[in-house]
């Protein structure tokens, strides 16, 4: 082989390597691009579904075949064309209603699975609101004229309250002005050595205006009137599709609807708030479960009502693209238990009633970290400060290894499903004694094999 040929071969090799390197680099650069999600135009079911405690928004995209709704509740559905995209950071599907939001006109056709009867649902104007009450049933839905009337009622209440606030501000301003004037006069008179009794009497007789009370009728005021198809279904599986004004079925609108209900209701769950980590409560939702704690600090508890739902169905009711276990049921928080008392029973039979209290978290003074939770004193040192925590305080009892707690209602009756046992674990005592158990079989083995060997040699 000539030297020239050899050099040419070498050049070719280097060029090939260079090209290979460039290609790899280009492929790598492709991975460094900004991750812009691809949006696709889809027909979606926009769902405003009741979830047992309030209303939550979700949507059912084209690829998702099933809509999940709570039975015997009003749920609001609209059919729209919009852009849908997958957001990898959260692993969720999202809509872009700002760019495209074409509401489809027509009606919904629904029939129970394996049944012939078809029901047509027409679009209605609606509002919903929540009025104050004890449990979950305070949500009201009104349609058409009633919806507008309720909204008007709320507006009236609201504007009347605003007017009262305005009036209060003016009266308070006048009061403050008059108070300052009289104070000034009193100071001047005192400086001149004159009697100020009359002025002081006038100051005392000044009446501070009463602050108007916010309208308490609504927990959640009526939402502005909108148009939707209301689906209030019994428990079961349904087939739903959308019919256009010309009578044709809208392509891609066929879906399955699973209408489900709670398996058990009126369960009681607890937020367990440790005194040393008050911002990180632990939820205890499983009925009659044991609350294990390390007993190093006081405990604050907050009871709440809970309902038990199918895990998958409920998760998809909240967000249609989420996952869950179709065979499992989980307890979902509904709302706090109002007006209750906690009864604590100690091992020696002592009983103690604990009422709900308000507490303030006080940061440790100086440069050291830490805090203490103290009872709220609105008229004393905590005047002008709102409480940080409203809960039942269970103080740390040295030597108490287990307490039973239950919730009593306003008439001092035990609230069903509220019984729990709280146990303080002994971490240190366990290790050596339990670990010695591991060696029992091995020791037995040596004994048995030793005996056998002895017998064999005899």
């Amino acid at each position: 082989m000539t030297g020239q040929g050899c050099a040419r071969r070498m050049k070719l090799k280097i060029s090939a390597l260079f090209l290979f390197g460039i290609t790899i680099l280009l492929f790598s650069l492709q991975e460094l691009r900004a991750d812009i999600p691809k949006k696709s135009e889809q027909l979606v079911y926009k769902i405003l579904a009741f979830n047992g405690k309030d209303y939550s928004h979700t949507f059912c995209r084209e690829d998702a075949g099933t809509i999940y709704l709570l039975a015997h509740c009003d749920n609001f559905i609209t059919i729209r064309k919009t852009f849908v995209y997958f957001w990898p950071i959260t692993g969720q599907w999202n809509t872009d209603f700002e760019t495209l939001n074409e509401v489809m006109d027509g009606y919904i056709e629904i029939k129970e699975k394996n049944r012939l009867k078809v029901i047509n649902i027409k679009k209605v104007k609606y509002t919903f609101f929540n009025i104050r009450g004890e449990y979950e049933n305070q949500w009201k839905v009104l349609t058409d004229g009633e919806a507008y009337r309720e909204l008007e009622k709320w507006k009236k209440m609201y504007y009347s309250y605003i007017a009262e606030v305005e009036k209060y501000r003016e009266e308070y301003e006048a009061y403050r002005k008059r108070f300052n004037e009289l104070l000034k006069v009193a100071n001047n008179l005192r400086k001149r050595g004159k009697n100020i009794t009359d002025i002081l009497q006038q100051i005392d007789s000044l009446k501070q205006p009463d602050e108007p009370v916010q309208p308490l009728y609504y927990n959640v005021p009526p939402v502005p009137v909108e148009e939707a198809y209301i689906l209030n279904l019994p428990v079961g599986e349904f087939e739903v599709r959308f019919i256009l004004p010309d009578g044709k079925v809208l392509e891609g609108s066929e879906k399955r609807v699973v209408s489900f209900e709670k398996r058990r209701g009126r369960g009681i769950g607890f937020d367990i708030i440790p005194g040393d980590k008050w911002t990180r409560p632990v939820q205890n939702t499983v009925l009659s479960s044991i609350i294990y704690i390390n007993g190093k600090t006081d405990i604050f508890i907050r009871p709440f009502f809970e309902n038990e739902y199918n895990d998958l169905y409920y998760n998809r009711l909240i967000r249609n693209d989420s996952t869950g276990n179709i065979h499992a049921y989980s307890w979902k928080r509904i709302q706090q238990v109002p007006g209750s008392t906690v009864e604590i029973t100690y091992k020696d039979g002592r009983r103690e009633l604990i009422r709900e209290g308000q507490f303030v978290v006080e940061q440790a003074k100086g440069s050291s970290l830490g805090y203490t939770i103290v009872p709220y004193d609105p008229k004393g040192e905590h005047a002008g400060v709102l409480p940080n925590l409203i809960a039942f305080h269970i103080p740390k009892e040295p030597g108490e290894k287990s307490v039973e707690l239950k919730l009593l209602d306003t008439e001092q009756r035990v609230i069903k499903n509220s019984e729990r046992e709280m146990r303080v674990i002994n971490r240190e005592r366990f290790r050596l004694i339990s670990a010695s158990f591991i060696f029992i079989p091995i020791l037995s083995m040596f004994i048995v094999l030793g005996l056998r060997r002895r017998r064999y040699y005899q």
Partner: protein
Amino acid sequence: MNYGLHAVKTITRRRVLETLITPGFYIAASAGLFFGYILVAGFTGSIDSGGLTFSLNPVYSQISKILSSIFGNSFVEKLFSHGPFRFAFLVALLPVFCYLSSSSVYKFGFEKNVGALELLNYGPSNSFSFSLAFLLKDLFFSASFSLLLVIFFSISAFLNNFIIGSDFFIFVVMIFFLVVGVLSYGILSVSLTDNAASSLALFFGLLMFFSVVQIGSYAVTGEYVGNLSSAVSWVVRWFSPVFYWTVGIRAAEYGNVPLQLLSISLLIVLSVALLFMSRIALFVRGMR
């Protein structure tokens, strides 16, 4: 006494003795207790001032992550709602169960293959009494180890101030019947195959298949996998001891005693049917 029964009793006693003088069972039992210890100790390490916090202990952090990703959070929450014992019992029993079942299946298959049973067949024993003795031996050791685990966990519970609830004891009883069902499949595997290795492969293959199908139909998966798994499970579950066990456990969870008793009865029926099938197989195929 019936000669057949006497043969079963004698062979069982012989098998029990054989297991007792070999180190395998003791090592497996120690491994099981070690796993049980780690899980109970890990659980105590996961308890914070406000309750159970899995992230505090590296073992439980991983376990909860894996179980949650397969079965969902609510499953994990319920599994540990009374303490660590149900999960710890299951994990602790695994080494012993694997040792007992694999050694029995392998040994039975091997002895069948080399013709060691031919001699026995001239006496009052037959292939069925021989296979039944294997099953009884395994049940004896499973029950003994379960008892040891119950004592171990009871002492741990007392020392740590945990509660061993009635649900744990129901769980232990249900596990025992599951073991009966699974070991019956072991006998059937030996009856259907020609050598020890294929018996073992068939047995563990079946066990894996039933477990995967049951887990697949219960796991949090995509709609397609879930539907496929459920469809396969619908066919397979009638032959699966894992299915009947799951039904029993779920019935116990909601205090449905009749359903629980039914699931136990079905596990027994399944075991009897499997033993009967293995008897027919041994009769047809012959046994040296």
